[in-house]
Structure formats: C-alpha cells, structure tokens
C-alpha cells in the first residue's frame, strides 16, 4: 500500500475555553491514501471540523503527529484545497476572480491563474458565467465556484468540510453526483467531512466514524462499490448493511472499538 498521502497518529487537541480545558480530539489516528476518497462522519461536536483545520495547517494539535507522504515536518498551510461549509466567495470579485483567489494567495500570477481557471470552468458547468457576480448566482453555482477555487488551489489533497451542508436537498443530491463524477475524472485525494451517511457512501472509498466529544475514531469501513457510482447502488443489501452498522455506531454512545 505504500506511504499514505496524509496520516494522523494519535492526534489530541485540547482547547482552553474560559479557563476550562475542553478535549476536542483524543488520540485520533487515521490515514488517507494517494488518490483515495475518504469520508469522516460523526455527530456534531465530534471535532470533525477541528481535525480538518489541523490537516489544513490552520491549527496545531496539542499532541500527536501529522505526516504528509511520511514527512512529519511538512508545512501544511497552503498545501491542501480547503473548503469550508459556507462558499465564502468574495462578493467584490466575479466568479472567475473568485476561482483564482486561492491560486493568487499562493503567489501564482493572475494571468496564469486565469488560464487555468478558464479551462476548469467548462468542466464545472460554469462556462459563460466567468463574469457573473456571486450575488447573481444560485446556491449550487456558488458552491461550484468555491469548488473550482478549492480544486485549483489544491496541490494534491482536497479537504472538504460539509461542502453541501448549506444547500437544499435537491441541489445537494445533484452536486453529490457531480462531485462523484468530477473526482473520478480528477483522481484527486479527498477527505470529506459530513454527517450525511448517504453522501459518505455515495462518494467515499472508505469511511471513518468519529465519536462524540472527545472525538476519537470509533469505526472504519470500506465501501465495496465500483465506480462510476450511481444513487441506486445505495439500495444494495451489502451497502444497506454497512449503513446500518455506521448508523448504529454514530447513534450509540456506548459502542467502542471497531477501529482498524
């Protein structure tokens, strides 16, 4: 299997909130292999977002190690394509201007960034909307612009924090399928945080379940589905069984172990 692209070993995160210490993550160990799509599911407050911030380099864990292709000293900031739940488009920039913002932040020249973004716009169903202000775009299109920005900025890793959380159910389903297709074509490595099991099963190769605070890995399951993925596959008996197992693990606060 070789060295995983991203690996967390025994990562613990303790916050200090008004004098009291809050343990957000407790000895979390997980890995994401090159070209793999991994989903991280957990109840609210399980530290999923904290974990993703750590991988994005925004926060430093209290203890534990992180390794990028085995390198524990690697600088994480500016490395991954990080995408939070809100699209966070700059309202004063056009769709294209927003898409290149991540590249520009990394020091890529505007003309080069624009060329690369233009090539991606057709693929993202955004052709013709390069000049549109974010305020004129629908929620789904805004999210795709944010995706374009993320994909362009990513060197080898996408960190997606509930990217569909703020969307209506129909738009969300559409975008999930779109992302599944996109990922199959891009072949990027992806770590997705979600609390939607169907989303995790539809998109991921492997799923980690985190426990409520303090977050720790409770269960790890591979998704035995071929690609391209289709929504109907979720009705297969073996998937339904995995879903039941994941759900039980998510809901039952007393279940421990099961982590590989």
């Amino acid at each position, binding site marked *: 299997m070789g060295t995983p692209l991203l690996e967390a070993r025994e990562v613990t995160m303790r916050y200090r909130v008004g004098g009291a210490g809050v343990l957000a993550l407790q000895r979390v160990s997980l890995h994401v292999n090159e070209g793999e799509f991994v989903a991280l599911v957990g109840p609210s407050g399980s530290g999923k977002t904290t974990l993703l911030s750590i991988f994005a380099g925004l926060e430093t864990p209290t203890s534990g190690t992180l390794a990028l292709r085995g390198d524990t000293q690697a600088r994480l900031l*500016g490395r991954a394509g*990080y995408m*939070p739940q809100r699209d966070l488009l700059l*309202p*004063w920039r056009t769709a294209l*201007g927003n898409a290149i913002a991540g590249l520009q932040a*990394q020091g890529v020249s*505007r003309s080069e960034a624009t060329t690369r973004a233009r090539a991606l716009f057709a693929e993202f169903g955004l052709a013709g909307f390069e000049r549109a202000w974010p305020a004129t775009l629908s929620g789904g299109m805004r999210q795709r612009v944010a995706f374009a920005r993320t994909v362009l900025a990513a060197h080898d890793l996408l960190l997606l924090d509930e990217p569909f959380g703020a969307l209506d159910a129909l738009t969300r389903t559409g975008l999930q399928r779109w992302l599944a297709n996109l990922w199959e074509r891009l072949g990027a490595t992806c770590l997705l945080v979600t609390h939607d099991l169907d989303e995790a099963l539809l998109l991921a190769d492997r799923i980690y379940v985190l426990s409520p605070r303090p977050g720790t890995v409770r269960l790890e399951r591979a998704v035995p589905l071929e690609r391209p993925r289709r929504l109907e596959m979720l009705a297969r008996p073996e998937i339904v069984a995995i879903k039941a197992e994941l759900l039980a693990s998510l809901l039952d606060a007393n279940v421990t172990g099961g982590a590989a």
Partner: protein
Amino acid sequence: MKTLHDSPDTAERASASATDMVEAPVLSTWPIARWWRISRLTLVATIPALALLAALVLLWQWYASQPDIDAQILPTPLAVWGVLVGQRDILWQHMLVTLQETLIGFALALVAGVAFGTLIDFSPWLRRAIYPLLVASQTIPIITLAPLLVLWFGFGLVSKSIVVLLVCFFPIVVALADGLRSADPELIRLFRAFGAGPVRIFWSVRLPGALPSLFSGVRIAIAYSVIGAIFGEYVGASAGLGFYMQLKQHSFATAGVLAAIVVTALLSIALFASVAIAERLALPWYYLQRRRED
C-alpha cells in the same frame, strides 16, 4: 439555470477584456443603459422632496411679501434669486475659493484617515493607543479651534483646509477601522489555509470588504466638509462664501446672506452626489448585493 442578470451584449463586451478586468471589473459591467435607468429612478424618487421644497418656498414668498414684514429682516425668495442672478460672478468666485479649501482639506483627511484607519487595524496595541484619543478629540468643538488655526496658519487657504481636515478626518478613520475590523473571520481563515500572509489577506480580503464602510464614512465627511470651510472663513478670511456671508450680514443685506447659503447648500449637495456616484462606480457588487437582499 441561467440566473445571471446581465444582458448578453454586456457579457460579450466584458469577456473581451476579461483577463485584465478580473480584479476590478467595474466599468464594463455598468453599461450606459443601466445608468440611465438608475438616474431616472433617482429623479422619480426625488419628486416628493422637490414638491415639498417648492411648497415651502411658496409659503415663504407669501409670508415675506406681507406689508408688515421688513425686507431687511426677511427678504422674499425672489429677492434672494435676484441676488443669485445679479451677483453670480462674485458668488462664483467666492464659491471657487471655498471649493478649493474644501477639496484640499478633504483630500488630506482622506489620505490621513486611510493611513490611520489602517494603522489602527494593524495591532490591538495601536488601536488601544489611538482610538480613545481620536474619540476624545471629537469633544473639542471646532468652533473654538478655528480662531487658533487662523492665528497659527494665517488668513489664507491653509487654515481653512485644516479646519476641513479636522472635520472630515474622524468619520473616515472610524469607518475604515470598523470596516477592517468586521472582516469575516472565516474568510480570513480560508485565505490563511490557501497560504496567504497577512499583507495579502489585507489587500485581497479585508480592504475590499471594508470599502462600503469607508464610503459611508466618506459620505458623512463630505457632507460636513463645506461647513468646515465656511466656518474657517467666518473666523477670518479675505475670500470665500463664509467671508461673503459675513460681509453681507454686516451691511444688513440679508438677501445676500441667504443667497450665499443657497450656494453653500448646492455646493454640498454636488460634492455629496459626486461621492455617491464614485461609490456606485467603485462598488457595483455592493449595490447588486443590496438590491438582492431587499
């Protein structure tokens, strides 16, 4: 699926220069047709105010033409109009002096205000040092400072411009500092994750986001700027609308005073309108967003 509200010709024209317009896509998305529509709407919107103004002027005309009203105490609007027409060249010359003082003082306030607003934003320490002093400085009435300024800087342009500077500086600093401070922390986190440093975040995220706030400060500043100049002229000057007013007041030419007041008001309105237009041109996205939210 098309939710874009630009007309096709706009999109076409825009894409021609798209590459160099990515950061500041201002003029190309604002065709003349749209401007016309907005101007028309603005005109329609001002009709009630103009009607009320006309009614008040008529009322004034009627009252001031009563036989027992002394024209030296309260001249009629027609008499004021007579001065405006008869002395237009003189009024114009004085207006130019006041305008010059105002613009110089305002420009200085803008430069200093942006500099200090940014400085305050740079560190919490600087904020704690500068901000209270700024607020405290506003408790000093400019009226008491103006004579001193004339004493220090003479009867000319400099003392008036400094009065204008003092009047305009505060709203600009506070507006910019508040605007910079209210930047979305999640947006800043996102740009940090992309690898952007504090300087880039300032230019790409915080400053553009603070521009609407800065502009509202600038609007307040420009509205008071002319008053500041008139003030300085009142204390001691050899030209300007304030000087003219005082001259007329001393010779009991009340219609002349009122004529100068009318010119002052028109000047203020013109300056305010220029800022409003500049704001529309600079922040098309902001107005678009506000329209959506209405």
